[in-house]
């Protein structure tokens, strides 16, 4: 096993984890809610808020990926089967990929639909694509599909964490919730 790995996550890693968990949940919920609303000023406001949140989450995800690459995660519990190692490794890789791809696909969709993003109503962001209504629709479908993918992965991720806590009774969940391991 890699002996260089620390026994716990840094405090920054834990904060980033929960900040993104909270931010992604809220922004995803707002996204699903607002897309079904009838056309109204509120809907246009929600779209702007959703885009501001999405750009913020993209920045946080980039910072978090940088942090993760420079601060290795603690080693898995001794004796964990190889398939669980692999599953954990790939779930985390996909989660990072989606944390970047989801806001990026939203930004691309906005650009293609011809509605630029003005961050917090102040900072105009560049359009990543030329206006193209058909492409905008397809990117919208991709944005939605990636979010369903995220929901599935997060469910798997949470179920695995609970399995470690309830069935294996190891300290994996406590590494992200340090108060559990203190007891």
């Amino acid at each position, binding site marked *: 096993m890699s002996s260089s790995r620390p026994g716990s996550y840094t405090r920054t890693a834990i904060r980033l984890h929960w900040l993104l968990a909270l931010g992604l949940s809220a922004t995803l919920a707002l996204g699903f809610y607002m897309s079904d609303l009838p*056309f109204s000023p509120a809907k*246009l*406001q929600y779209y702007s808020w959703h885009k501001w949140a999405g750009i913020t989450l993209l920045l946080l995800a980039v910072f978090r990926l940088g942090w993760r690459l420079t601060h290795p995660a603690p080693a898995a519990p001794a004796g964990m089967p190889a398939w669980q190692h692999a599953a954990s490794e790939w779930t985390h890789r996909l989660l990072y990929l989606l944390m970047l791809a989801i806001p990026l696909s939203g930004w691309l969709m906005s650009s293609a*639909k*011809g*509605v630029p993003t003005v961050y917090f*109503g102040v900072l105009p962001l560049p359009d990543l694509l030329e206006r193209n209504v058909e492409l905008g629709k397809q990117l919208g479908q991709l944005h939605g599909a990636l979010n369903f993918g995220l929901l599935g992965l997060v469910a798997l991720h949470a179920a695995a964490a609970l399995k470690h806590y309830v069935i294996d009774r190891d300290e994996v969940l406590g590494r992200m919730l340090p108060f559990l391991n203190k007891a």
Partner: protein
Amino acid sequence: MKIRLAYTLPLLLSLLASTAAQAVEYSQLLADKSSLGFSYRQMNVPMDGSFKRFKAQLAFDPAQPAKASAAFEIEVASIDVGSAEGNSEVSGKLWFNTATHPTARFVSSGIKALGNNRFEVAGKLTIKGKTLDVSTPVSFKADGANGVFEGAFTIKRADYAIGEGMWADFGTVANDVQIKFRLLAAAKK
């Protein structure tokens, strides 16, 4: 004296003739080469739109702006704000109410030269049954046999009750709307 006149008269006549030859009255709008757009701010995001169908009666001789006139009819339902959802919304009662007010109009009331091929066109703009005085700068340039007229002016959407009820607040969609036009017109044949 007589000799002078004999020389001067033909010169004067030829001058007059050349002025007459230069006087071109642009009267036929080339609709497919013209554009009528607008821009506005939605949540402080700059947005663009346009009207796809409009007609005009023009009589514009840049040499005689005082005699010039322009009248436009815009088919409001031909609006494009960039999305199907937006287009059906702005055709509705709270916005343009195109069922009751299918046509917007501009009729010029006075045109004056500002020099340098620039003009000030005043007129009455009717949208959604409300008529108000507006004026816009227009620049002219000849493009081969055609004339190109370009300009922009700003109206307040609330003045025409465009966006009533829940849209009346300017927090989401700003009050200022800039109208931009680029019109190509052919000379009378």
